[in-house]
């Protein structure tokens, strides 16, 4: 992956002329900014996926990314913990910082960065291990072998993910025996077991039924006091229910970023309005 190697965009200014600058009215957190994104651009090979996204993700708040399929919301999320590094021929430019420290750059320790950000994926992806091993995987990665420490971390993470009561008697059973919703909460437990600062969620409820979805949403509500949460969702009601700030993206651009209730009730941008009212997308 080349970083900031391309100062020149493939489709410069002219194409951008149709797009107004981002409408920007988020609530600010008293704790300040957790992640700041400045003019972030990203190319897959020669195809540009993100066009100069700039936003400040507020600390201790839930920020949701919405937009139609292919708008770049997942790409943006996966750039935050550098999961996109797995893709060949990826180029990025711009300045992205976590608590003031750069995320992209040759000196960045990607592994240390990822340890500061837990991630939950679209489909539950528990490892083929026991429930306890799944939850303590981030600690195992850090080389923790003390059984007492592991057991404590396992319990607190499972309690944090509201799964403890359901699985406390079968911690040594395979995680694959759990239901879909339980598996996703297990993945959340795994994501928070390493004590991250940020929780990235990539459509965490898209593979779940409504009841499981509701439980995850309650969980997000509980977790937001301890973590900065960024959630990608294609479910606008969900975004409206759980998030403080909402970013609407369209064709690789950040169209509007603002306080959730404003974005959904009084969107400033016409495109946002069309999208949230269901006229397209």
């Amino acid at each position: 992956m080349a970083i900031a190697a391309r100062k020149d965009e493939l489709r410069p200014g002219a194409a951008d002329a149709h797009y107004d600058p981002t409408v920007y009215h988020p609530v600010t957190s008293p704790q300040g900014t957790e992640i700041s994104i400045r003019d972030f651009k990203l190319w897959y090979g020669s195809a540009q996926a993100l066009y100069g996204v700039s936003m400040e993700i507020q600390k201790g708040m839930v920020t949701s990314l919405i937009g139609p399929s292919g708008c770049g919301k997942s790409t943006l999320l996966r750039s935050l913990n550098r999961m996109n590094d797995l893709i060949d021929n990826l180029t990025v430019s711009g300045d992205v910082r976590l608590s003031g420290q750069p995320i992209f750059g040759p000196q960045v320790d990607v592994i240390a960065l990822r340890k500061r950000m837990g991630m939950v994926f679209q489909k539950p992806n528990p490892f083929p291990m026991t429930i306890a091993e799944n939850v303590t995987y981030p600690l195992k990665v850090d080389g923790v072998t003390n059984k007492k420490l592991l057991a404590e971390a396992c319990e607190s993470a499972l309690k944090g993910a509201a799964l403890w009561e359901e699985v406390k008697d079968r911690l040594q059973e395979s995680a694959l025996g759990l239901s879909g919703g339980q598996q996703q909460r297990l993945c959340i437990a795994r994501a928070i077991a390493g004590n991250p600062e940020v929780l990235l969620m990539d459509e965490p409820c898209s593979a779940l039924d409504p009841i499981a979805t509701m439980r995850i949403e309650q969980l997000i509500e509980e977790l937001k006091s301890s973590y900065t949460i960024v959630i990608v969702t294609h479910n606008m009601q969900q975004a409206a229910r759980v998030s403080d700030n909402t970013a609407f993206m369209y064709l690789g651009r950040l169209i509007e970023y603002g306080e959730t209730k404003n974005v959904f009730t009084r969107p400033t941008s016409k495109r946002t309005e069309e999208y949230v009212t269901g006229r397209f997308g």
Partner: protein
Amino acid sequence: MVDMAQTSDEYMDGAKDKAPASRFSMARTKGSDLTARGEPMVWAMGGSLAFGLLMISGFLALIFWNGFTAFWPKPLEIVTTVSGRTIAGEPLRTESYHPGAEILAALEPSVRDAIIDNGGFADRTLYRIGNYDFYGNDFEWVSAYEVKSVATPKDLMLVERQEWGVFIGTLISMDADGQVSNRPTLDALNAAHERTRALREARIAIEKGPVGDINHEINELRLSIRRAEIKYGTDSPEMIAAQEHAASETVRLTKEFDKLSAQVLAARAAEQSVTVKVADIGGDARDFPLANFVLYYFANDLSLAAKVQIYLERWWEFLSAEPREANTEGGVWPAIFGTFVMTVVMALLVAPFGIMAALYLREYARQGRIVSLVRICVNNLAGVPSIVYGVFGLGFFAYVLGGSIDAMFYPEHLPAPTFGTGGLLWAALTLALLTVPVVIVATEEALASVPRSMREGSLACGASKWQTIRWIVLPRAMPGIMTGLILAMARGAGEVAPLMIVGVVKLAPELPIDAIFPFVHLERSFMHLGFHIYDVGFQSRNSEAGRSMVFVTALVLLALVLVLNTVSIIVRNRLKRRFAGDKF
């Protein structure tokens, strides 16, 4: 649906003069293109599968039938021919053949007419007559028209001997330490046989054990002198000291050796004290030490239980004993052991190399033209004729690598090579090279089948690439990797051509693993079941004698491969359950 049925009815009624009412008629159009419906291809595909299965099951049935019946004791017959000759033997098989014109001309007119009426064919039976030391021949064809009478007397005896193969004839007397008993009872014979065989085994144990050790020590002393010479120079004080030490030790060892030799001689005399006089069907009587009889029975006087016992005894001898009579008799234990050890060593060598190479190719190498090229080359390596690997193994492993090892670590043995010639290690390495493409391809596929979400989940937890591979990817891929290893082992265990050049021998004096330090002797040449089949079937003095051995050995080789594969499959399924839970 109703409409369509009607349409097709209409169509069927007026098929000759009316076009189908609907373009979408479900009825089959006469004369329409068969391939459009696909049934002919289904027949072709099913037929191919059936043909393949038939061939394989026929092949297996042949090996199983011939293998399992080879050791069953068959009745013995005495054939009296028209010309008055008598032949005693074990009828093996009957076939029809085309007697030549000269033979026909010499026959009686009535016999000749009968053959001509039969389209020029006559039947003949192959008898195993044994008694190679009497006749110089083991087998004889007897044509049906030559036979005057066939008898199956109960006193006809079949003996498998330590030397000269099978004897068929009658028992006349037994001479036990000068006490001669005519026509001894079977019990008396058995008792004497057991006693002398035990003596014989004790004697062989001395020869192989203490006597072998002394030979080994004497050889070591010789080598210590040579070592001192190489290290400190000719006639250096160290060498002279070694020589003196060797001289004194040799005196002691020679004394011990003489003592043991006397023991061996006495044992030999004791075991030869019982002799039996036997005569062939022509009345040619000869004496043999009873200890030289491996197995004997009165073939026409056997109960079913006795037959089963003989059958099992022969199997046991086959599986546990060393071969004799140029491999056409006796057992194949060294070959089983050699095949097993070589296959295991090969698997131990090929697994880490293949898996690591595949891990690099799939996980670390930048996917591009070069990696594709490497992948094509790896796949093509699997198609190189195995004999080429054999030549490479001999040229590179044995001569270059082995030669260097000899020069560095075993200079005192030279010019006799230690590692510088074909041996177990080089054979295993050659086969590892031969099978590594299989492992690489299977491992790559297994790695590619690990879901992306697993890797991402692990990386998102802050795991490094290696941690992800070690804890997530490899366990998930393990069943697939094991499948590749199983294929490689099956291929390696059955391979013969390269082994013939890199270390397999017709008769190996020692097993590759024994009680002499360092216990595992990877430099030794070894025996192999595949090569044994070739050797017995095509290189022995009498291919007819080896015929049944070929089938039995093939059966054992199949069984060995089956056992190795079964073990690996059990291990694989355990891994599957352990690492994959109940999801797939």
